[in-house]
């Protein structure tokens, strides 16, 4: 076992050797090393998060035909640090009548719900936090904690705008969790396991090519879960000022903001893991674990870029339309897709790889086409009904 092939295990064994050499109990040394590993991962993520602020601002600037931060440091790279100093020295306000403990707990839980996701992210074949056999469900479980943090922030702020923002966000998150859960079942069906590493290992052909519709629905549900445009009703500036985080100032607001950016990047990563082969890229991941991490980060960044692309080019949708879109279109469609995928998977199990991929791809296209046709005919009827009423009104 050498460091370049399995860096985590070698480093952990080396550190444990040092600790036990100091006369420390073996169990205690193991716990301490695991704790240090978690601490290191969180530190790296938080440092990455600082630069995500810069990336986000640069990308939005390009979408809006601006240059973005370019004054502080080369290419404005030091800008996020200036922002952090500003956030830290800002006055930390607590609104009158706020529920102090809940109010202060909410930003921590919000950040935690994102960081906890990285426990199941396989960075490389040999590098992952825990090899959980329910990794896919863990994603939804962490989302539940995120939902909780938002309703806590909305309620404890003692502000009606925050409360309405919290209500909206929870309605959206709970609604879009249903198609997301259904879409998580599709990689599970193909891989025959809910383990993240097993899902990546099963992707000799990226699941995106086997089930493009699932990848698309997962992305839509993920964006809704993130509460980003076009699903950012919770912070509709024109009606709710800033939504659930309206009363937060300084670094407490910073926690929500940084949490959202890291969450978007994380979902980019999960999109890559579930549908784009994760750390796999033509066998390059076998060369070195560090190369595998690099591939995963690049894929996650591309996923993050797609999420930003959607955010900065789409308009906000009205809340009832958004929930109607989910409950009346996305949820039935995703359940139909799961049924069709399970059926096709059983039928094509013994078939050749190319036949399997083509059959799956075609069944996806057919399901998507039927769904769009149904949606179109319903929309046409609705339009005729509304226009008919208008015509009658105009006549009178």
């Amino acid at each position, binding site marked *: 076992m050498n460091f370049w092939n399995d860096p985590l295990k070698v480093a952990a064994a080396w550190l444990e050797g040092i600790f036990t050499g100091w006369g420390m109990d073996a*169990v205690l040394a193991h716990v301490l090393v695991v704790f240090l590993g978690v601490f290191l991962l969180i530190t790296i993520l938080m440092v990455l998060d600082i630069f995500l602020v810069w990336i986000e601002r640069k990308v939005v600037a390009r979408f809006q035909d601006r240059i973005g931060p370019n004054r502080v440091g080369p290419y404005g790279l030091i800008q996020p640090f200036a922002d952090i100093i500003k956030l830290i020295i800002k006055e930390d306000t607590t609104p009158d009548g706020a*529920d102090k403990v*809940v109010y202060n707990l909410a930003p921590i839980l919000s950040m935690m719900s994102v960081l906890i996701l990285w426990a199941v992210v396989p960075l490389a074949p040999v590098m992952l936090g825990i090899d*959980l*056999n*329910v990794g896919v*469900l*863990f994603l*939804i*479980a962490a*989302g*539940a*904690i995120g*939902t*909780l943090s938002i*309703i*806590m922030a909305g*309620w404890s702020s003692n502000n009606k705008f925050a*409360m309405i923002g919290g*209500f909206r966000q*929870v309605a959206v998150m*709970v609604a879009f*969790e249903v198609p997301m859960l259904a879409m998580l079942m599709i990689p599970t069906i193909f891989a025959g396991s*809910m383990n993240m590493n097993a899902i990546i290992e099963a992707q000799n052909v990226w699941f995106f090519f086997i089930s493009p519709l699932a990848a698309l629905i997962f992305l839509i549900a993920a964006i809704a879960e993130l509460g980003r445009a076009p699903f950012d009703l919770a912070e509709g500036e024109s009606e709710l000022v800033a939504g659930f985080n309206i009363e937060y100032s300084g670094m407490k607001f910073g926690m929500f903001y940084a949490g959202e950016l890291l969450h978007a990047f994380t979902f980019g990563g999960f999109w890559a893991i579930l549908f784009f082969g994760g750390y796999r890229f033509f066998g390059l991941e076998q060369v070195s674990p560090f190369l595998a991490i690099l591939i995963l980060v690049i894929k996650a960044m591309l996923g993050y870029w797609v999420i930003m692309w959607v955010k900065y080019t789409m308009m906000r949708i009205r809340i009832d339309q958004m929930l109607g879109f989910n409950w009346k279109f996305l949820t039935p469609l995703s359940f139909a897709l799961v049924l069709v995928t399970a059926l096709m998977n059983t039928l094509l199990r013994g078939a050749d790889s190319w036949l399997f991929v083509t059959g799956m791809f075609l069944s996806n296209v057919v399901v998507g086409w039927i769904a769009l046709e149904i949606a179109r005919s319903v929309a046409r009827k609705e339009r005729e009904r509304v226009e008919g009423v208008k015509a009658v009104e105009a006549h009178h």
Partner: protein
Amino acid sequence: MTAEQIIFLIVALFTLGSALMVVTTRNLIHAALWLVATLFGVAVIYALLNAGFMAVVQVVVYIGAIAILFIFAVMLTRKDLRDNTPQTNKNWWAGALIAVLTFAGLVFTLQGWSGFSKTASAVPLGFDAISQLGEQLTSPTAYVLPFEVASVLLLAALVGAVYVAFNKK
């Protein structure tokens, strides 16, 4: 005492303490939040028992759904969120008696069971609990009938709820 026993005791105390707070706090929202803490404690106990699937499902179903309960709690509370009426009625002693008797009965019954004082054998390496669970739930020789009956029951409850809430135009 092993490290696992210490962790179990801490988690069990946390769970029981949170459960006590659920029924004693006068603030409805705080009660819902303590309930979340209690259910999270139960999830940790599942994880300690090597039942990772149960632990994650506990968090998904209970904590995810408690957020909704929380919203209802907010909608149902009065302006000052506090209730000044007594928290028990005159039958509290009967409830306490039944609880103590149930606990005593459980302990008494379990003491006659041979597995009560036995240490569980370690889970074999590579044991796939989820596949086993999935096969048991869909196998005709095992639990497919109770599983389907439970889902029909839930569906009936769902239809009933929609019917009650449905606003006839």
